[in-house]
């Protein structure tokens, strides 16, 4: 008896090893993130991090709850516009207050949209979210505080907590990095919590989750609201970084782009959206400088088609498959 309690069973050993490996991976990525601005251009990195957070938020919904939202641009834009408007019109506000307000606005919008959209399933869910987001787009074209077609320019970066000047790109980078790590950690905790397990159960078999007594709609709604809030956080942060908020963020192409990032990186994997966002943003930046600049949307469309036809697990998903096969 005593022998069995003291020695670990092989499965527990394997699980512990997996946990150690994961811990090492997180530490390594954290180190890379801290060193990165000395190697690459910080503004480019910040762009990737903002979109990565956006894609991670989207992935929480598609990858773990199985809900395809085609309207996430609305949350990105709402965060951006609210933050941009507040920071431009109230110079006394500190950036973190502006970002918090933008995030809360997206959270609220997510609550309303989520409550409406979860009344339909599957394909209808996608169409409802797309239509609602288009309504938001029209609203932002006409609303007085968004600057219409011109958007908001010259949003001040300000002083973080009234202490740290964010006009230096390096300081700004570490702030964005901290925001991303925070958002990512929240998603990681959500996915690995009992709540996340229920979400996966709903994704796999909704009627069974209902019959087990789970209030499926409540779970879906909470997931939707978290996702919308984090997308808003990404939009707010992006506005502070680039000092502008524009209609591009509200356009449905943006909702499509975040789907592509997630699909390319790997739906339902934690790191997939990060990889996908990095690739798509790099590709767009590279293409914009090349003679192929006008073909960006055609190339993105082609990647979409290829991903769906033959690469549905995405890059991280495929790597996980290989790892699982060879390093059991």
């Amino acid at each position, binding site marked *: 008896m005593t022998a069995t309690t003291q020695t670990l069973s092989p499965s527990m050993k394997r699980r512990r090893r997996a946990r150690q490996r994961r811990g090492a991976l997180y530490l390594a990525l954290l180190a890379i993130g801290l060193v990165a601005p000395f190697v690459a251009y910080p503004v480019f990195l910040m762009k990737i991090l903002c979109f990565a957070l956006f894609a991670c938020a989207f992935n929480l919904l598609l990858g773990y709850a199985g809900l395809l939202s085609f309207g996430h641009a609305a949350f990105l834009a709402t965060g951006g516009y609210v933050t941009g408007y507040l920071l431009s019109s109230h110079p006394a506000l500190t950036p973190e207050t502006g970002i918090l307000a933008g995030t809360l606005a997206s959270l609220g919008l997510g609550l309303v949209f989520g409550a409406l959209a979860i009344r339909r399933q599957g*394909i209808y869910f996608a*169409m409802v979210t797309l239509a609602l987001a*288009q*309504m938001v787009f029209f609203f932002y074209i006409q609303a007085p505080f968004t600057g219409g077609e011109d958007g908001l320019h010259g949003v001040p970066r300000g002083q973080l907590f009234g202490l740290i000047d964010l006009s230096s790109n390096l300081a700004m980078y570490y702030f964005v990095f901290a925001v991303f790590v925070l958002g990512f950690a929240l998603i990681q905790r959500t996915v690995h919590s009992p709540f996340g397990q229920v979400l996966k159960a709903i994704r796999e078999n909704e009627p069974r989750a209902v019959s087990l007594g789970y209030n499926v709609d409540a779970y879906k709604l909470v997931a939707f609201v978290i996702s919308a809030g984090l997308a808003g956080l990404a939009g707010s942060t992006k506005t502070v970084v680039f000092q502008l908020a524009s209609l591009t963020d509200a356009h449905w192409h943006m909702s*499509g782009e975040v789907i592509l990032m997630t699909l390319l990186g790997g739906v339902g994997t934690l790191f997939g959206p990060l990889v996908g966002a990095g690739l798509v943003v790099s590709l767009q930046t590279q293409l914009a400088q090349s003679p192929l600049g006008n073909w960006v949307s055609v190339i*993105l469309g082609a990647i979409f088609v290829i991903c769906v036809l033959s690469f549905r697990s995405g890059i991280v998903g495929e790597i996980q498959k290989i790892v699982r096969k060879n390093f059991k």
Partner: protein
Amino acid sequence: MTMIFGVPLAVFMGQLMLGLINGAFYALLSLGLAVIFGLLKIINFAHGAQYMLGAFAALLGLQYLGINYWLALLLVPLVVGGLGMVIERTILRRIAHLDHLYGLLLTYGLALIFEGTLINFFGVSGASYPVPEALQGGLNLGFMFLPTYRGWVLVAALAVCLGTWFVIERTRLGAYLRAGTENPALMQAFGVNVPQLVTLTYGFGVALAAFAGVLAAPLYPVSPTMGSSLLIVVFAVVVIGGMGSILGAILTGLAMGLVEGLTKVYYPEAANTVIFLVMILVLMLRPAGLFGKEA
């Protein structure tokens, strides 16, 4: 002058007419979506792009090949529908066994490709297509002036919608289609070539979009982005009506056009959002849609 709630009758009727014509396009496009959805269970995100291709095919046909409007009305749906069948055979069929959301994503990618390619060649500003000679001028209906072409669009769109309804609900081919919608495996067991039926159905849905595109060419500027914004409104129409019924799709499309026209008269600021607001209302009161069957 006769007034209706403070608006001159002629203005009122004019906006209503415009609304009805928009509604005819909503009806044609949502009908195509519903037909495709019925058998393939996918939402054809490329529908707007295919509508746009229809308009462009008519325009280019006129400019380079001298194909006149009437011939275009016949040929373009065949050509674009044929392209649709090729897409179904070569691409959509490969993912038919997967979650239907992949169909949405795939056709979205296709829409990006079509739209982006045409933007590269023709830019985003629209070209205009001349109104055919026989349909120039207008009719004085006494209470309003109706441009002949608009009247023709309404008649043609309604005729095609009702014709489609007749084929699907009243003919043998339509019976196959409906049976295939219910239970494709059983249909195949009875010796019906279901894969062929699927190809034809997709081609037909695409042809409807292309037909709408040719009809729209003399009315609206022909531009690569003309389809995508329209498609999102049509999605809202589809959510409102539900895709369970052919007649339901037609009626909802026309009704939403009228609602939009009325809003333009009384509160123009909300004209491009009113359909989305109706959608929200329907989602709250009758989540399955007005003609929907699912719970």
